[in-house]
């Protein structure tokens, strides 16, 4: 069974994994799901790091805008939760596909 997204063996998200791009790239039309997933993951990671840095800067006095820090943490939080939901849905879909008896 083909594994275009690289879920088998990973069991979840692993940014370090190298997914074979050729199989996915050979598909017609639709975006490369693996790449989309990976990009989103990196983006969320970056937003988390930015929010963390924002909090630290506020504590050390390097920035003074509380609202900016709050917005940064909220955005990072929302992005993470969305990614988590996306992963859960993908896992559910995978489980369903696994049930299909060929």
């Amino acid at each position: 069974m083909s594994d275009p997204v690289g879920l088998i063996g990973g069991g979840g998200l692993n940014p370090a994994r190298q997914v074979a791009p050729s199989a996915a790239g050979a598909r017609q039309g639709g975006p490369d799901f693996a790449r989309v997933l990976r990009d989103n993951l990196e983006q969320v990671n970056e937003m988390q790091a930015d929010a963390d840095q924002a909090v630290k800067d506020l504590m050390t006095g390097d920035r003074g805008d509380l609202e900016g820090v709050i917005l940064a943490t909220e955005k990072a939080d929302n992005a993470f939760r969305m990614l988590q939901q996306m992963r859960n849905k993908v896992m559910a879909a995978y489980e369903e596909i696994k049930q299909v008896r060929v």
Partner: protein
Amino acid sequence: MMESLSTSGGLAATELMMRFAGGRQRVLAHNIANLSTPGFQPKDVSVEGFRASLRAALDERGGRGGRGALEIDNGEVVASLSPSGVGRMRLEPGTASGNILFHDRNNRDLERSMQSLAENAGMYRVAAELWRKQSGMLKAAISERV
């Protein structure tokens, strides 16, 4: 990603700020209680000094890969925060400067003390809320099913 959140500087920085403001609250309450005491000199710890020391400690820890303890020692504040969360915070307040020229010492001390009190409570609240936020994000990451 989750590991970086738990060893991140954000949780440590807000925790140290909270404990600093909490300790400073005692110093400020002491000043206010002694508004009428003859010969009393109000004391305080420098917030800017603490912030600079916090910045230096975070940078130093960042240089170590974001791991290990945060250490602060700037003469007024001696604090440490280890990865296990146990740490210490000790404040040595010095004499607040610049008030000896005024005869009406009592008035200036009252306004300045109340302002410091309000600012300190504000700092505490900001740090507490941000700590809660980051801790909540960590918990959300932990609690969702794999």
